């Protein structure tokens, strides 16, 4: 139920981490634990939508299922050539 809040925070982490490079974001890697209380389909649905809204320009989401209550942004993938288009 709170996946939208989580998705918004993931976007905030991406913006804080990437700064001016946010539009070049192409993929977000997440680790979601089986005890994290997250419905992965809901989270990816929210992220798929949010990541098409400016300053984002569309990015994929890769979720790794792990054990425990882990909920972490593991990596961000950027394509520097994208800014040229």
């Amino acid at each position, binding site marked *: *139920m709170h996946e939208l809040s989580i998705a918004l*925070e993931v976007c905030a982490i991406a913006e804080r981490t990437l700064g001016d490079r946010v539009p070049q974001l*192409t993929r977000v890697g997440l680790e979601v634990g089986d005890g994290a*209380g997250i419905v992965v389909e809901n989270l990816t649905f929210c992220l798929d939508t949010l990541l098409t809204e400016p300053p984002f320009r569309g990015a994929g989401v890769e979720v790794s299922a792990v054990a425990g209550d882990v*909920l972490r942004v*593991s990596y961000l993938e950027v394509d520097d050539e994208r800014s040229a288009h």
Partner: protein
Amino acid sequence: MSVQRIDVRERVMARNDLLAATVRDRLAAAGVAAVNLISSPGAGKTTLLEQTLDHVGRAMRLHIVTGDVQTQNDADRLARHTDRLVHAVVTQGGCHLDAAQVSAAIDQIDLHDTDLLVLENVGNLVCPASWDLGEGARVTLFSVTEGEDKPVKYPKAFALADLVLVTKIDLLPHLRFDLSKALSAIRAVNETAPILCVSAESGAGMDDWLGWLHAQVSLARRAAPAVA
């Protein structure tokens, strides 16, 4: 190579947890006890707090922050039982309170004129369990009008509780509710938290609840740094 992978390894809850730690430090420095009340909608959080305010009177300086998706009805109800500020957080759709909301709320409270801060969370047994608000203790309620198996259906809310309250026990004679099954369900997910059976309506168990609150206040006060 134009595609670059940046390792982040940042916990999604890190910012909330950092704010919660700040709230906890501020409360500890002022010697204020804080409890986070979690339950489904209608389990009796507000009624319990109304009775609590009536019982403690001016003997305990109690501040309440209520969380609701819409309306400040709960805060209005509680305000009739206290001359202190009751702070309403309207989450506008949010399904839980978060540490930023609590931090903003306590900015408006004189912590040095407060013994106990009660955070009445949004009625929801799922999401509030995942958000640390900076509280000293977490209290999870469920009423006898709900199923006995609520604790095993919503384990996180009960597993992280420091106290579990079974509410509305005055209704037991009218219900097919097996209290021993409910207690077993609590113990299945939480082996240690004390369990109190209460009725705000009849007053049953209220002394135990008030005693527990007083103990929280004493603990927080003893742990506070001495004022020079």
